[in-house]
């Protein structure tokens, strides 16, 4: 299946949860936020939320700023 993560196309061999996706793309789960199709998914639902074909994921992290 195909999904988009921050406008980048990703091929997944099997459906993943958000928690598994972070691991798959080597991203830490600390200091980040996730939205699926612009709907923010809170951290406590990451392991239960399974991604669907064509989902657009936004992965945000904290960075330097004033």
């Amino acid at each position, binding site marked *: 299946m195909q999904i988009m993560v921050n406008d980048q196309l990703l091929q997944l061999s099997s459906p993943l949860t958000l928690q598994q996706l972070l691991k798959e793309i080597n991203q830490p789960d600390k200091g980040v936020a996730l939205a699926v199709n612009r709907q923010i998914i809170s951290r406590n639902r990451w392991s239960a939320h399974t991604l669907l074909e064509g989902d657009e994921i936004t992965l945000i992290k*904290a960075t*330097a*700023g004033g």
Partner: protein
Amino acid sequence: MLTIADKTFSSRLFTGTGKFSSRQTMADAITASASELVTMALKRVDLNNDQDDILEPLLNAGVNLLPNTSGARNADEAIYAAQLAREALQTNWLKLEIHPDPKYLLPDPIETLKATEKLSEMGFVVMPYVHADPVLCKRLEEAGAACVMPLGSPIGSNLGLKTKEFLEIIIEQSNVPVVVDAGIGSPSDAAKAMELGADAVLVNTAIAVSRNPIAMATAFKEAVTAGRRAYEAGLGSRSLQAEASSPLTAFLDTI
């Protein structure tokens, strides 16, 4: 001690994390500043190249994090960014900044007021970055802002307190803490803001771009402390004429 919402601060200097040459310099400067509240921005993770983890050193420094909504051009975007920030950093504290124009980065007052109303209802501790507009600051207070953050001059300009007279009105009228944000270019600017009665200042660029950010952070810490002490002690009144500080006893008249 300064209280905003449910937190008490011993330091009245808040700092930003932008523009430092390295993570280590940033962390050392923040430690030197003794700041207890530190701003951060949000960005999309670059899946191919993302090595700039600055969260860890900040968590190690034990400071409170204040995510901002920089990049938001209207209230809806700011509210979305606020919720992402709350998820990412697990805090309901928020520096609300909405600036549609990248040249001057001046805050949009109408969108900021709208977003403050909504975000306060949603349980955020909203710290809105605004122009030094006394009427707007009162409206934000009524809308539930935890403090107001009027600017001294444009973000990153180091121009100092161009809005001084308006800051004085805001400070006089406000029932919530006033944090002077943006444009503070030197420790003397920070001291001046504190002498006027500001509850705190937020400084980023002036520390980060200094040749020696750690020494500059210390200078700002001392300036903020000195300015606050002077405000509490009470400044003397001003006069256009001289007021002799030595006795005019005419003791030389007979020589």
